[in-house]
């Protein structure tokens, strides 16, 4: 059934592109329906994790320790497990076996007597430290695509101290700093061996890595939150053994024993670190990015197949990320997604239902956010929007979801491009540095009528390029564009 629908959409797209049979496409920027999911009475609906069983039922966990199962067909909820400590991720192996990441452990919940409730709470791993600091949240488990899992471990915060009794080795040199790592592997992403539960240190340098995703080809992506050492929130492409910038985690790096990472000179740290692939200008796009997912719905979620969607706590929209591989390195652009469609804030977890709709779980935890759950589904309309933004040697290629009205797009003076950077420093956050306009030399319409090529007078790496399209840019059928401004993180020039 799904296959047929999938095929149908592909055919429709094919028709519209190649034979310009425009009657097949309904344009509209209200392309998504956002519906509230009714959560059960008595639940404090601060969501920590969502995943789906193959039969379409949703497995989900909440702040006060519940793991619940929701059947979208009957809209009924059932209790699978309870009493966990702030679970922030769930992954169902089957309807009788789930993995849950909570504060103390990664736990396997097993319903051995098949009565719908877990009766075995088995430790998969607890080989990481807990100091008692409230900020040591744990995220995951994210399947790595090869049978194992990734988890990520938040640093502690100097908003509170640690306990007299901690779990795991205490290292005093990890105690200073605004966000700190005085027990093992705080600020790390770890790989969990599914066979024996062994925990393998994977990459370091994270602050609040509340979002893990793996794409089709097995590449690992992690979001991190603005704060100390993070001028703005960002998305990292994470590779084994690399360091991503927040120094506290280095306490647990081999060869760094006895060194307070904050005594390492900033230029050295700057050389050591891997940069964010896509940066989200603070408070404009994101304050606290959360769960990334990839749209592999085969067109069932609209025209953005293959792109990344990320949740965000502080805004009533999601983020749509367009990755651009430049000479083997991933960077890319970002725009708000599903704005003004009824989505509320606090979008802590997002997950695909088997029918191609996106379920959203909210949380706040005393920060900005919300409560409850929503479901986003595509209604078949094609929004007029930026489809992709790719770096060229002299500027950017922008393509759109729909053919554009050429007159609305051909004046180079009606485009503005600003660039700036956020500083890598110990301080909390960063202002925008070296904000300057870059002159647009030339704008060329693409032959297919669905894109433009922008030549800039100057391209420099290590800046965010904020491109604002002409005020009245619209589709051929005069649908105004959804997002006029897009933010491209340029780490590397095209050779």
């Amino acid at each position, binding site marked *: 059934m799904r296959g047929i629908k999938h095929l149908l959409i592909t055919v429709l797209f094919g028709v519209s592109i190649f034979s310009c049979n425009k009657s097949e496409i309904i344009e509209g920027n209200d392309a998504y329906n956002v519906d509230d999911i009714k959560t059960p009475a008595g639940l404090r609906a601060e969501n920590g994790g969502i995943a789906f069983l193959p039969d379409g039922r949703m497995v989900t966990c909440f702040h006060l320790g519940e793991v619940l199962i929701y059947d979208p067909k009957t809209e009924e909820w059932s209790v699978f497990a309870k009493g966990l400590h702030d679970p922030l991720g769930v992954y169902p192996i089957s309807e009788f076996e789930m993995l849950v990441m909570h504060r103390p*452990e990664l736990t396997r919940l097993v319903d051995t007597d098949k009565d719908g409730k877990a009766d075995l709470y088995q430790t998969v791993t607890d080989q990481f430290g807990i*100091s008692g600091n*409230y900020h040591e949240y744990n995220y995951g488990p994210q399947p790595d695509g090869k049978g194992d899992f990734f988890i990520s471990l938040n640093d502690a915060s100097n908003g509170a101290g640690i306990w007299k009794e901690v779990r795991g080795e205490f290292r005093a040199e990890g105690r200073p700093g605004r966000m700190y790592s005085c027990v093992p592997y705080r600020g790390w992403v770890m790989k969990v061996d599914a066979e024996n539960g062994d925990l393998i240190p994977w990459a370091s340098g994270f602050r609040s890595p509340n979002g893990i995703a793996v794409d089709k080809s097995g590449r690992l992506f992690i979001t991190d939150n603005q704060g100390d050492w993070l001028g703005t929130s960002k998305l990292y492409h994470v590779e084994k053994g690399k360091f991503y910038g927040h120094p506290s985690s280095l306490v647990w790096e081999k060869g760094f024993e006895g060194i307070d990472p904050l005594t390492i000179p900033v230029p050295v740290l700057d050389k050591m670190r891997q940069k964010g692939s896509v940066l989200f200008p603070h408070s404009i796009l994101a304050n606290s990015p959360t769960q990334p997912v990839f749209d592999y719905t085969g067109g069932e979620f609209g025209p953005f197949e293959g792109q990344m969607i990320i949740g965000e706590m502080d805004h009533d929209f999601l983020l749509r990320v367009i990755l651009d591989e430049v000479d083997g390195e991933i960077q890319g652009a970002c725009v708000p997604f599903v704005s003004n469609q009824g989505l509320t804030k606090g979008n802590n977890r997002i997950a695909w239902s088997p029918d191609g709709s996106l379920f959203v779980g909210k949380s706040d935890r005393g920060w900005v956010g919300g409560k409850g759950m929503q479901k986003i589904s595509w209604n078949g309309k094609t929004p007029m929007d930026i489809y992709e933004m790719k770096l060229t040697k002299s500027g950017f290629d922008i393509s759109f979801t729909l053919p554009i009205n050429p007159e609305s797009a051909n004046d180079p003076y009606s485009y503005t491009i600003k660039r700036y950077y956020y500083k890598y420093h110990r301080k909390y956050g960063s202002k925008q540095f070296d904000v300057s306009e870059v002159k647009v030399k030339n704008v060329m319409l693409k032959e297919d009528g669905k894109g433009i090529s922008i030549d800039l007078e100057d391209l420099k790496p290590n800046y965010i390029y904020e491109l604002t399209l002409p005020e009245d840019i619209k589709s051929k059928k005069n649908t105004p564009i959804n997002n006029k401004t897009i933010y491209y993180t340029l780490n590397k020039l095209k050779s």
Partner: protein
Amino acid sequence: MLKSYFTYFGQTFYRIRLFMRLLLNKGFIFFVIVGAFFSHPYAKSQDLTEIRIKAISGLKYDLPRFAVKPGTKVKIIFENSDEMAHNLVFTLPGKREEIVGLANNLGGSGPSMNFIPESEAILASIKVLNPDAKEEIVFTVPNEEGIYPYVCTYPGHGFIMFGAMYVTTKALPPLETDQNVPESQREKQEVGKASPHPYPLTYPIIYRTFLPDCGPAGIAVALNKKVSYSWDAGKCMFRYAWKDGFLDNSEQWQAKGKELSIIVGEVFYKPTLGFPFRLDNSENEPEVKFMGYRLENGFPKFNYKMGKALVNEFIQPFEDPNGIGYSVQFEVSDLDNTLIYIADKSNDKMEVSSDKGKWEGNKLYLTPEEGKNFKVYYKEIGTNHHAGH
């Protein structure tokens, strides 16, 4: 009663603020009339009303509302005690949401404008303050009576982080029904017996949570209405038992989870001798690894490794007419030598006994065969007697 509060007066400015706060929180009739009430020369010479507002954790101002007479000159001292940035914007009556909307729409220019939009509906404002920063502003409140909101217009904050400046000489409405104050800051509702979950709470109850006098991987179990205990999953051992209550999790569950769960009731047994087992005639505590627990009739049966031995530990209620207590069943497999179990017997109200093994002082010696399945009973004696007084 009101009179007794008046004895606070005439001392220090700070106390007057305390007094204001007290009245505010109680929803009493009051007004602040500067000069008329103040006999303090310092306050008078300033000729202005000092109001301190702190941004605190949980997207809140510590002061949810205050009242001043029309035309009062006020000095607002704004301090950011939170971990994130906040500003403070006073608006004209009814304009809070409009200003918050404008601020949210500032887009890229928001940060440089401190997220304070240009609007005639703004009475006064203090820019975005980073954590621990402090700033003040002096202005004269309008002569028109009204409810003037103050709000943090940092994106996302304004929908819940606000308060109300009452410019009035009249009584304020009761705090608990004051729609001008965020819901979370109206008088605390009495926590009822309702379950905090989407299911009724029935014994036994298990919570993984942060507990006092326990490692951070804590487990709290209420066996029944009378007896609860804590178990440390990091150290794989029992920590303490208490009676006549379970937990108050409201602080731990509040927001970020900084606070511990609170033990409700009375701790009646807290052994202090560390991990209870010794293996292979060694003086040292064996290494442990927490494997999880299985629910049997709802009670957790803990499972852990201890050296190369595997342990099941099952704590169940145990009662007789003379006292309350619990039993611990141990199943220790893969033992090569005598197993030693150490019980803290220093509490003379606790009676400790076992169904197997030999006691020598506080040590119970068990053969590998006995270690496979034995029970230790902990009973608080004389409970009923004490309860009678």
